[in-house]
Every structure is written in C-alpha cells, then in structure tokens.
C-alpha cells in the first residue's frame, strides 16, 4: 500500500502550520536570555521605540502556574527572577508584521547579575554551581544483577574503556511552529507541529489554568519530529497561547532555523565508563558500567532518557553479574531532550566500541567475541528479563555478515591497506537491540485509549492521538484496520489528531505507535464488531452493511468501538528495583559498516552499510525500509559529521551552513534486510522499529574506522563525531 498522504506531500498541497492562513493572526517571538545563569534585575525596553503596536507578555501574564508541565515541572514557561540558560525566554512579543517583531526583539535588553554556571556535566560541580538538590544530579538510577564485586575478584581479565558521544540536533526539515487562538466561548485552540497532542493539552491546562473542556489541541501535518517535537512543542504552545490570550487575537510562532537550532532540545551528550571482567575466551563475566548524561538546565525528559539508556547499556549479551549506575546532570545549557533512540544510541556506542576493545585486547576476532556472548533464548538481560522469543540472534548476525561480504572484504582490505599510499579501508559491526514501547510500567500508566467509529456511510474512522510525522502512521493504521476488518483502504478514515475528537492513545514516541497503538486499532475494531453483534472474525461487506444498518436503526447516534491498553500477561517489572521485564519485547539487529579513511584529509567515507534486523512482522515494506534507511543516515551523521559546538551552554553553529548533516552524495545506498518473528501482542505481529536504526550506525562506523586505521592509531576512536579534526588527532601523521 502506498503512503496515504503521499501525493499531497509530493505536490506540496499538504498544509503544515506555516502554510495555514489564519485571519487576523499576529506573529509571535521570544526575547531570550543572553547569559547562562543569573538573577534578572531589570528588563529594558528601548525608549525611542513605539511599543504600543506590540503585545508584550512576561511571567506576570501567566494565569496558571509558571511551569512547563512535564516530569518535574521545574522549567518555567517564562523566566521570572532568574535565568538558567542562554536563550531561555523571558519576554514574548506579538505584532502583525514579522520583520517588526524581529526588529523589536533587538530593542529589548536585560540587566542580569551573573551567577557561576555549570557548563561541563562531566565535572563535579563547585558549591557555587549547585542548583539542584545537593549535587546537581537530576536523576540517579541503577541496575544490578548478580554479585559484581565477587565476579571481578576472580576474573582473569579486566578491561576498561571510556566512551563519549556529543549532542545531536534533530534537523527535522520543518522548523517548530504553533498557532493559538481563543474563540468567543473562551475555548483555547492550539494547532501546530507536534508528536504528542495530549502533552500539549496538559501543558496548556497547567500554565493557562484552563480545564480540559476549554483546551483543544490539533496536530498539523508535521515535517519530521525524531523526538524533537515530543516535549518542546509544549513550550511553544504556551508561548503562543499566552500571547493570544493577551492580544485577544490569533498568534502564530514559527521558528526560523537559527532560532530552532539555538533554542530547542538536542540529544543528550553522554559519557560512559565500562569495566568488564572476561575469561580467556572473551566471555563476559561481569560488567560494571557508569553512564552520565548532560540534562541541561531543566529536568525535562532526562530521567526517562537515562532510564532507557542504562537498561540497554550492557548490550544484547548474556552476563551474570552486571552493575549499571546512571546519572543525569544539570548544566546551564539549553535543556537536552528526546531524540530517536532516547539514551540507547549513547549506550550502544559505548558497549559496541567496548566489545571491539575487549576483542582486540584479548586477540579475539570481533565477530567471535559477539558470537560467544549474544543472548540466547532462556538467558537474561541486565534487568533479569529472560528472553524467550524464538529469535536466533546469532543467525541474524551471520546473515548480516554474509550480506555484507564481511570475510571477503576483510581479506581485500588487508591487501589494499598495505599498498595504498593514503587510503585505508575498514569494517565494523554492531549488535544492537531496542525495547519497544514505554519503559517498565510506562504503558500501564499511560493506559492509552483509542476509538474506531462506524460511520453512517459504512466507512470506519480511527480516532487516535497518534500523529503522522513522516513515519507512516496513517498508512500503517489504515493497513492494520483494513486487515482486521477486511475493508479497502478507501473505507478507512483516519481522524485528524484533534483532542476535541480523539481519545488519548498516548504519545507518538518510543517506537510504540505501530506496535502498541496499532494493537489498540485491532482491539477497537474487535469491539466495534462486538457492538454490531457480529462474530469476532467477521470481515468485509457484512461489516459495512451492519454499520449502515446500525445507523438506520440509531439515527444521529455514534457507533464507537473502544480499546484501552492492557498489559500482556507475563510482564513483570519493578520500578523500584529496576528488575524484571523492562519491555514487552525487543527489536534485534546487526549493523555493518565499511568505510574508507583518506589520510590526506582525515575524512571518512561510508562505502557501504548493511542493516539486518528482526522487528516482528513488517507491515509495509517500503515504509519500514525507509525508516531504517533514514535512521541509519541520521546515525551516520551523528557518527561522522554532526557536531553541536557550545559556548556557555548554547549552540553557536546554529545554521545548516555549519551544522552539517549528510547529503545524498555523502552516503551510500543503505542495504536493509528484515527477519520476521511475529510478536503476538503487537499489531499484526509488529514490534517497534523506528529507533533501532539510530542505535547501530555510530558504533559500527567507529569500529570500522578503528579497523581501517589500526596501524596508525595513537588513540582509539572512542568519542564521536569522528570529524576529520578528531581523526587527525587520533592518528600519527603520514607523509604520502
């Protein structure tokens, strides 16, 4: 099935928020802090400037609580007495003319008494830098299994490594944008680019002191999210709504790229330390892992990013003794937030680099090292979760090796590297896994609801708060319902994600939309059949006829099948001890990169890339393949070129001129293969897939670079991105 909204996108007729013409609409903009930390003494509005044309909002205009509703509500909507990071919004302006707005922002200045800022999350803060609890630690989480101390005492080898990953910008091609207006009855409508409409509802209720009946949030077609439109749209929605409230006119805020890159969230920078006990054959005896992530100035989603990160930090391997300590640290940086992978890419980079490090130290082949340790059915992950899904992860790795021509290339590279004056080729692999859906009891707490309505013309309408952000949700939900009820795609309508019409089916995050919300589509279809008095396996025209007949009997009534998430049996998780089934299921993959490093320029080219994964049932091959390819290329960018340069906690290369993402000519075609092992609790047997491809490329590429440069390295490529500058610093110069 082709992408449902595909032609609208190809012809440019799809209407994103910036494409909507809203009568009487003002443009909104924010004046932001120029310093990373300080006490606000005064705000100066330039004297010889006509401020009467502008709507001006500050923290005193917030009718509700001056907090962005999230995990800990520590982030103000607008800074009141103090600022915690550069670009923190202090004053909002609105005006009919966008240029006038831009100009006016520069007519506002701040008197701020600076305070000592914490700018390096890796350093223990000084007393003057403490701003959260007693140690600036937002969250401290740990996983323990077995007896690590004892296991290290008896171990023949202990191998250590330190791995670091940098921030990454989402670069969704559509910048953040939101519009807000109040109707005559005082109902607030907010429409814009977002992943999670009900997050925005909650934020607006909290900051504007409105009950749910007075808040309506509508998702516009969204030009990419990748996590960047998970939490941040709540901030933008509050800004637009506050301006609209004061102006009593609609207000639209559309970030330009510079503001978007400067002021919105990024992937958490992270440092991981591994200390591993292994036997002579390279079998993992004990893993002691520390993961520290940079949370930025406010808590936002950092605790849950950390949670997923540490749970995945020990890799898809069997090891009896594991200790993982994770900390999310405050820094006076623009807050870091959700980004595809959600802590796992950082953890997987460290683990898979470390596996190569162990293999190299012991003189074991990198593939053999993984073969000996990959988790088999019946064995348990670090949380004690016993894996018993029937997926042969060793066979999956072997398929990737075969498809990539691993053995042949290794031989060819050896000869090539000996003779070529300045090019070096190498190969690297990474074995990765990604838990589908929310972590631990997350899905139980969400208790997502979804409706499937039977319409009077016999069509059905799926009502969910899940959003199409490019991943193909409209097409996949259509396919799931079409398969379940035996209907043609044209007989299935997907309701706009408008919170006045759709129930809260949970956020569009965590690789959960197809597997979890898609399952609710199936279950709501079943409930619809039940309400029609039809047998549970009835399909096709009988269903259509029953729906139209129902409406003839019940004119003007709503026929709605409902479903609510129920945890599948056999999942046991303890939030307090971090033990048990962290996820209902996992996607498994082996990724292989082949690279060429040019020693003259220290640039790395990915020659080819093979991604082999098991993700349950593949519902739509084109969409699934596209997700993997896109994720891999985003991962290649993070590994090789994407570097957020920070000064005082703010990104200074906030332009696409100097924040470099891969172009078509920077990457090879990405080879994708699927193994299918249906997951009985996912829609049509599907598992999550969207984040998995972000986890594997960076370690596979770094391992390949290490392989290519093995003779020349004075230091290991254990920090990314592997820019030419970094490669240069790792290698001995050649004189070609």
């Amino acid at each position: 099935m082709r992408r449902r909204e595909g032609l609208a996108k190809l012809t440019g007729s799809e209407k994103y928020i910036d494409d909507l013409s809203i009568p009487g609409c003002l443009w909104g903009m924010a004046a932001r802090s120029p310093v990373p930390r300080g006490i606000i003494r005064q705000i100066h509005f330039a004297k010889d400037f006509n401020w009467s044309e502008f709507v001006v909002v500050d923290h005193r205009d917030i009718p509700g609580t001056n907090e962005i509703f999230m995990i800990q509500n520590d982030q103000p909507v607008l800074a009141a007495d103090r600022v915690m990071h550069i670009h923190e919004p202090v004053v909002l302006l609105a005006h009919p003319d966008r240029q006038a707005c831009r100009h006016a922002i520069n007519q506002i200045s701040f008197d701020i008494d600076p305070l000592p800022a914490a700018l390096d999350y890796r350093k223990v803060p000084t007393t003057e830098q403490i701003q959260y609890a007693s140690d600036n630690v937002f969250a401290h989480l740990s996983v323990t299994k077995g007896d690590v101390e004892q296991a290290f005492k008896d171990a023949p080898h202990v191998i250590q490594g330190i791995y670091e990953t940098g921030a990454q910008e989402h670069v969704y091609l559509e910048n953040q944008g939101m519009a807000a207006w109040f109707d005559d009855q005082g109902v607030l409508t907010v429409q814009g680019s977002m992943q999670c409409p009900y997050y925005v509802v909650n934020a607006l209720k909290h900051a504007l002191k409105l009950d749910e009946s007075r808040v309506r949030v509508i998702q516009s077609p969204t030009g990419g999210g990748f996590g960047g439109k998970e939490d941040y749209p709540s901030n933008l929605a509050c800004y637009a709504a506050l301006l609209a409230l004061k102006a009593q006119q609609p207000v639209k805020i559309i970030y330009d790229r510079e503001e978007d890159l400067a002021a919105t969230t990024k992937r958490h920078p992270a440092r991981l330390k591994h200390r591993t006990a292994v036997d002579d054959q390279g079998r993992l005896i004990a893993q002691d892992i520390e993961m520290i992530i940079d949370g930025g100035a406010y808590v936002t989603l950092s605790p849950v990013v950390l949670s997923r990160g540490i749970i995945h930090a020990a890799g898809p391997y069997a090891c009896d003794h594991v200790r993982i300590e994770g900390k999310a640290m405050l820094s006076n940086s623009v807050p870091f937030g959700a980004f595809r992978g959600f802590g796992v890419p950082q953890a997987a980079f460290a683990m898979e680099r470390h596996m190569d490090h162990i293999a190299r130290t012991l003189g074991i082949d990198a593939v053999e090292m993984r073969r000996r340790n990959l988790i088999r059915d019946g064995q348990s992950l670090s949380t004690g979760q016993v894996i018993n899904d029937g997926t042969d992860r060793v066979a999956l790795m072997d398929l990737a090796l075969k498809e990539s021509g691993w053995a042949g290339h290794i031989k060819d590279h050896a000869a090539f590297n000996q003779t070529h004056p300045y090019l070096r080729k190498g190969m690297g692999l990474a074995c990765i896994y990604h838990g589908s859906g929310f972590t631990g009891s997350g899905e139980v707490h969400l208790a997502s609801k979804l409706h499937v309505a039977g319409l009077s013309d016999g069509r059905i309408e799926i009502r969910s708060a899940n959003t199409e952000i490019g991943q193909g949700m409209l097409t996949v939900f259509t396919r799931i319902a079409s398969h379940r009820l035996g209907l043609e795609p044209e007989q299935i309508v997907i309701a706009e994600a408008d919170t006045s019409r759709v129930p809260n089916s949970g956020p569009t995050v965590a690789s959960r939309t197809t597997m979890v919300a898609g399952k609710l589509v199936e279950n709501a279809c079943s409930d619809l059949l039940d309400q029609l008095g039809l047998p549970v396996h009835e399909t096709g025209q009988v269903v259509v006829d029953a729906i139209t007949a129902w409406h003839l009997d019940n004119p003007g009534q709503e026929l709605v099948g409902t479903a609510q998430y129920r945890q599948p049996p056999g999942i046991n998780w303890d939030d307090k001890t971090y033990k048990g089934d962290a996820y209902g299921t996992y996607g498994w993959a082996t990724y292989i990169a082949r690279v060429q490093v040019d020693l003259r320029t220290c640039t790395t080219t990915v020659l080819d890339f093979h991604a082999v994964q098991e993700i349950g049932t593949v519902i739509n091959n084109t969409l699934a393949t596209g997700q993997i390819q896109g994720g891999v290329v985003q991962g290649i960018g993070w590994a090789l070129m994407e570097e957020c340069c920070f000064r005082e906690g703010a990104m200074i290369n906030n332009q696409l001129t100097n924040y470099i993402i891969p172009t078509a000519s920077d990457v090879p075609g990405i080879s994708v293969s699927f193994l299918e092992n249906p997951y009985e609790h996912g829609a049509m047997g599907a598992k999550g897939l969207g984040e998995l491809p972000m986890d594997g490329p960076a370690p596979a590429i770094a391992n390949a670079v290490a392989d290519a440069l093995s003779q020349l390295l004075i230091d290991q490529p254990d920090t990314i991105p592997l820019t030419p500058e970094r490669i240069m610093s790792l290698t001995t110069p050649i004189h070609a």
Partner: protein
Amino acid sequence: MSTNTCTNPITISLTLNSKPLSIAVDPAERLLDTLRYQLGLTGTKEGCAEGECGACTVLIDDQPANACLVLTCQLAGRFVRTIESINVDTLHHMHEQGTTQCGACTPGVVMCAQWINEHQDVLKHQSLRQLMSGNLCRCTGYDGIILGIEKTLNETNPATAHKDPR
C-alpha cells in the same frame, strides 16, 4: 498576516507557472515570502533560509534556485515555476518508492528532480546523488528519493536507463 511592511513597493511582471503576473513587492522581499505569503503558493517550503537545504527549490528560467536567496524584484521578465506547476501524473514512481516521508523537503526534491528530468544530459557529468545533494532530507536516508527519481527518469527516457552506481 504579512511578514513585511513596505513603504516603497516596486511593481514587476513575470511569468509564474505559465501565467503572466504583475505584482508589487518590497525591494527586500524574498521570492519565498512572495510565493508563500502574498500568493498563497505554500508548496514551496522554508527549511533554513540560507540556501543550504533546498526545501524552497523552484525553477527560474529552467534552472533550479533556492527561493530563500532570490529577491522577487530581481525577477522582472523571468519565468518561474513552483511545485504547484507539477503534473501529479509524473509523481507515481516517487509515491511508490518512498520518496516522501514527512514531506517538508519533498517539494524541493520534486522540483530538482523535474529539472534533472528536463536536462538528462547532466547525468553524463554528475551522478544523481551528486545532483540531488543540494536537497537535504532527514527522513529517507535518500534511498527512497534516488530510487523514485531513477524510476521516473527511466520512464521518461528509457534509452538512457539510469541506475545509481552506489
């Protein structure tokens, strides 16, 4: 809702999507804003506003250009084509091959592909991937884009069937 208040507009005539157009614009107004906010042609997207991403690609006198870097007042007598001029029947291969995901880069991609299709000789000098490297996409990893364009090109001109060498 304007983006710009202008005190000294100048009037120019050009051909837009095969139709004559006379329009008064601020001398500092970008073509991108004229298209989107004056003419309601919102298919052309803003991605970066500095000529890096190609989301605003249009054809000016049959050459691809970033509408964010062109002042409308420079276009007197010129022929401008936007995504709104594209015949939907030419898009089925791109639809089928996953050329679009989120859609924000897509109009620019389609316009660049249109130019390549009309000037297939350029493929003798540069690969399709090189020719498409002015259009950033964050969703597809480019395979869906390259495949969709290849199939489109091959249908238009099967004699010079094109295949991505990578």
